[in-house]
């Protein structure tokens, strides 16, 4: 009889899964804290430009977004490939921006309105013509505080 011979019939004890929920909850809380909800479904393709002098958008509730870029492939049949403006969940024209800003303003509390910011998420290959038009519309609707959304670039 060897001392090291395996005893037949003895099974490996099953790994305890009692701590699995705890691990998953830990992951869950990590993602809940570190991420933010998507605001809308993108209907345009946006590759943000790079910049170094960034400031963060502190209060999400004060921000309204304007998206500009080429429509995604599934919309190109109806809307073409020229850069378009997206407000909320639909394509829009430059003329719709004033109404959009007014609607956004109406949905905020009175005391928050002066601190509202408009975030422009514009694809870097867009021509300035459309951006300038948007800026003129924003000036007309007195939404003067804007933020050109861009990604962090490493300092040269």
């Amino acid at each position, binding site marked *: 009889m060897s001392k090291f011979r395996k005893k037949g019939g003895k099974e490996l004890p099953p790994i305890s899964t009692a701590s699995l929920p705890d691990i998953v909850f830990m992951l869950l809380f990590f993602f809940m804290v570190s991420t933010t909800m998507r605001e809308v479904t993108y209907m345009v393709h946006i590759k943000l430009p790079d910049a170094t002098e*960034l400031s963060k*958008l502190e209060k999400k509730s004060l921000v309204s977004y304007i998206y500009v870029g080429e429509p995604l492939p599934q919309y190109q049949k109806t809307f073409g490939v020229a850069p378009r403006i997206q407000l909320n969940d639909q394509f829009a024209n430059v003329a719709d921006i004033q109404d959009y800003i007014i609607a956004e303003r109406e949905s905020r509390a009175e005391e928050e309105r002066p601190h509202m910011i408009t975030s422009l998420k514009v694809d870097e*290959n867009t*021509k300035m013509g459309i*951006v300038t038009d948007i800026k003129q519309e924003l000036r007309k609707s007195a939404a003067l*505080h804007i933020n*050109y959304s*861009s990604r962090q670039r490493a300092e040269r």
Partner: protein
Amino acid sequence: MARKVPEIPAASLADIAFMLLIFFLVTTTMDVDSGLERRLPQWVPPEQLDEDQQIKERNVFVVLVNRNNDLLVEGEYANIENLRERAKEFMANPYNDETLPEKEPKQVPYFGEMMVTKGVISLRNDMDTQYGTYIAVQNELVAAINELRNELAREQFGKPYSELNMDQQNAVREIYPSRISEAEPKKVGGN
């Protein structure tokens, strides 16, 4: 002896938590929203625009961007790499150069009487300029002013601009105001 309450099975807890986890993974994004913060000028109806508001030529730093994304700074071709240095030199004017902007004395808290520049940076772009280039140029101009403010803050208070309190920041801002004006777009160069 009281009857034992039957234990709730915890085997499915993991599945429930996984479902929640996957829901959050799908519906949220990781990216923090950040960007270049700017303020637009008040809207002025075209008929009220007074054209006779003249600024001396030496006080204006003209940056033009054409449809091919080329830069024209103060009347000569320039690279975006040099723009920050040029803008800093223009706003600071350390040797009181005749061609760089004038300065006027001004009382500033914490600093006493300082010579404050009258310089204005004027940025004009074409309708067909790429947005990426425009942001890069804006970024360099903002960076130039931020760097000047930082240098001044370090000199005076020994810490960077962002760590100063409100009053100190206001004082630094008064010495280096962020005067970047954007002209109405029109065709520049090319055809």
